[in-house]
């Protein structure tokens, strides 16, 4: 079991960009973190699956799993054009909750 912390969420036409930090279940140690990008289109179920994959990547590779240059990622994301389909709010909910339902909507 791991604890996911999601921050700095930006939704663009390309996808969802966010910071992901992974801690042990008791929050005492950090396994790693970085900036993930989930490319569109995706359903809610696909989003949860992608998060799970991201977690496993950090478990295996720690800070090397994902890019960490937040300024570059933020700049590139803005250049891609912002979009708001609610996916950003959804992923903040999924930061710690495992109880979301697959709404089957392509985004």
């Amino acid at each position, binding site marked *: 079991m791991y604890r996911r912390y999601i*921050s*700095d969420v930006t939704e663009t036409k390309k996808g969802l960009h966010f*910071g992901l930090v992974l801690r042990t279940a008791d*929050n005492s140690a950090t396994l790693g*973190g970085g900036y993930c990008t989930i490319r569109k289109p995706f359903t809610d179920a696909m989003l949860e699956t992608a998060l799970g994959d991201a977690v496993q990547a950090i478990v295996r590779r720690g800070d090397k799993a994902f890019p960490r240059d937040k300024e570059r990622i933020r700049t590139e994301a803005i250049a891609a054009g912002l979009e708001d389909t609610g996916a950003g709010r959804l992923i903040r909910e999924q930061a710690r909750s495992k109880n979301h339902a697959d709404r089957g909507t392509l985004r």
Partner: protein
Amino acid sequence: MAQVLELDSKFYVVDKLVQGYVTPLSQAYRTTGVQLRSDNPNVNRYVHRGFPLGLGWQRMNRETGRGVGGLLDSTCWTAQGPVTNGKLQETQTTGGALNHFRRALNFKGDLWGMFMELYAADADGSVTSTKFGATSDNWTGGGTIASSSAVVAVGIRGWDMVAHKGGLFALHNGASGAGNVTAANEVCYKVSISTDAATWTDASGTGFPDNTGTNRYLPTSVTRRNNFDDDMGRLLSYGNTLLAAIYRHPSATDGDSLIGVYSSTDSGANWATDVTIPSGDGPKALVDWYALDATRAPVLVTAEGIYSISIANDTFALIYALDGDPNNGRWATVGNDGALYVGLGNGSILRLAITDANRLEVMRIGPPGDGLVTARQGHVNYILRTPTRWLMVAYGGHAASKNASIFMIDTSVVLTDPETGESYMPWHHFWQHGTANLDIVAMAYSTEDDATERLHFAAEGSTDNVLYHIEEPFANPAQTSTAKYQASSILRLPVDDLGDPETNSTILQGLVDADDLSATTAGEYIAHNYGLNGAADTTTDLGDYLSGDKDLSFGSGAGVAGKKIGNRLIFYRDAGDTTHTPKLYEFELQAVNLLLGKKMWSFTVDVEATAYLVPPTLVANTPVQETIIDNLLTVATSTTMVTFTAGRLTQTRVRVPEDSPPVLNLQVKDADGSNVGYRTGTVTMRVVEGV
């Protein structure tokens, strides 16, 4: 010629009249706080052998002991050992961009300070780390934590700095390193790290809220000034975890009046959001203490309350609610006794102790007694724990006619006010600013870099902070010959009622047991001023205690009469040598209480002569002699005072004392089997004044 007197508006013939005084039965009584010594029954000796109660006592009550052993005010050293001049500050040298001091701490064998440049709209700014050098008492070296690259109107503030694992961490705004702060990132928080306090790099990794589009939590109205009481952020090294509490200021673009607490277990590479706590002002303190269940926890102090944070569960819990005063809790500190000391905006300091699971004890530790004198009133700016029993508190100085102070609070004792029952800890003077309306903004304690103990502190100046230190801050003056002292200091005793504030005492002389007094006022000496019956304690100059003159007489030897007296001793150091100070071990006042006796009269009433010469109003069917006897017995049992006149004596009010009832020597005249007759003879009386 018959002797006639008036008693209770009636007249009596007496054989003789004796007048005297009723002498008081009690001895000159021993006053509370007096050390055991051979009694001198001729005078009362009011001895002050140290001042363990500290400051805050306006009057001494010699019956209850309240205030005896305390002080009204003082700028002398009174914490332990002999009373001396207050300790002398030395000014430190800063320069360049070291305009405003935030805090200092020991790191890898040196004392490092965080300094900020004075904000100016037409100049660049910086936050730097700089090292204290004992050789020249200056701050030099180190490096730039953050700065702007050119002349840009951005403000750069440092909020806190801690040592964590192998690095020094700084919480500030903008960006890490030199030349990177811009108008875009000025309004964002940043954490930086240095392993040598010279080169600083970014420690705001993944998860730290520094997005210039969504995490604009600081308004430029705050970043572009140097107010020491802007409590925007705090850091805490909590074992393996570094915590940062930052205020999302409501006036900022993305602010929401929440304090966000973030944590990192890998020295800032990755951050997690732990909790958010609402507040009308920023984080006042972030300390390593306990939750209510007595488990160790990070504790956040805000204006509204004291909260424990569970890192494991990402939750917080209220330990103790406060009233929202923005001056609550600033730099609250855990003392050596494990209690949490929290200053309040109303001037009090609370001591919180979690003695068992779900058992919180809260005690107000002062200001004690009647409170501080007006010039020293205010609230806490900074609390500093030291490796001694003394908790150092920067206090007051926030307004005109208010001078900032550093107080030493003795956390090794808890005393009780004998009249109110309130518990407190003694407060002693350590230092007072000579100029009003200038705050002391921060303090630090260190022995770096030459193993000399120093208390460092920064006070507001006209634009920049002025940094000082005091060496040997806790040294007993009797045990050091190198400590330095102020040129003059005052010791104001509480007003002394001398045992009875309602009657005059004859105050005879003052005496001192003091060492290191000089023969003349060119060297060390103690001046004595006083005021009687509510007059200022500077009203009369009694004289100077010198090596050859350790007793001073009041009234040129005749004494002075007073119901109460306020004493002020002024300590003068040697003009040329800062290490030479008078050392006072004991101050004594000698006086006698004037317990004037009441007037007393004794006389014997001749009943027959009174019936003949000055008979009372007749009572039907009652011989006049019986009426006279009844009238005298009525005086003896009267529950109110009766009039008394004899000769040219001004009429007064008297009563018959319980231990001297009338004595009647009577005969029964004209009595036979059918007639009861009447009593006559003499009645011996004693009467005394009521007051």
